[in-house]
């Protein structure tokens, strides 16, 4: 399974990718913000997207709207990994089209469960 990890913090991308590798997801790609994420999705095929919310240039919410607005990517499972976990944040993210939500700081078990849930057909 190929996963695109979008986060402006290189540290957080590394933590997420280390976690994914340990869970057996070995093919991971990276982008540093939503705009780069859109560019990556135009050139590579992935099976899932994991994105941060707060990023410069294009936020996670705008990025998800772009993913959902594109015929080629609109069906991709999207997991949001963010510290923004107030009730209103979650509502806003669900509206934008996320399939599942992981709150930072997370545990590997949470990432595993949320990925598996996001991959299940609705």
């Amino acid at each position: 399974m190929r996963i695109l990890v979008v986060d402006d913090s290189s540290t957080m991308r590394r933590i997420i990718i280390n976690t994914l590798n340990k869970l057996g997801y070995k093919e991971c790609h990276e982008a540093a913000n939503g705009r780069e994420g859109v560019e990556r999705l135009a050139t590579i095929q992935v099976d899932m997207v994991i994105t941060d919310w707060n990023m410069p240039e294009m936020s996670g919410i705008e990025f998800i709207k772009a993913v959902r607005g594109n015929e080629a990517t609109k069906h991709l499972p999207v997991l949001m990994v963010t510290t923004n976990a107030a009730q209103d944040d979650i509502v806003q993210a669900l509206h934008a089209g996320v399939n599942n939500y992981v709150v930072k700081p997370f545990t590997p078990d949470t990432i595993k469960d949320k990925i598996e849930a996001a991959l299940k057909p609705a």
Partner: protein
Amino acid sequence: MSIPEQLLTQLISATEEVFERMVFVPVTVGTVDGHVSAGPHRHVVATVAFAGHRNGFVSFHSSIDTANEIAGAMLGIPHDSVNGEMPDAMGELANMIAGSLRTRMAAFEPAWTITCPSVTIGSDFSTRYPSEVSEARVPFTMNGRTVEVEIILSKR
């Protein structure tokens, strides 16, 4: 005006959780001081500001050695091979502590807006605040080293 007890309690829990889950090293909280001036060994300061229902910021303070140790632990690499990654790691650490505090407080009051982190690294600087703020510094021990989490609240 002092820092509300609830804010301090949530700040301590948020910091402990971030270290346990993302640094993979537990921290032990020390005695909370009303005001402590920055000592000579606190060379890295990572700050995230917040505004809205409350205005102020959260800063993480440590020595450069300890910051490299934390960055290495987050990245899963030996601390002596940490190089340019440390500022990003400290920024993300502050972002998670402040973000987690924001989420915790949103259960009791309107959610704040938080800023991108900024990181200051140096050996001869101190920070001064206008008189209209309250401050608390919470020391934590991590592998025998002291780090501090500071919260500043503005009256405005």
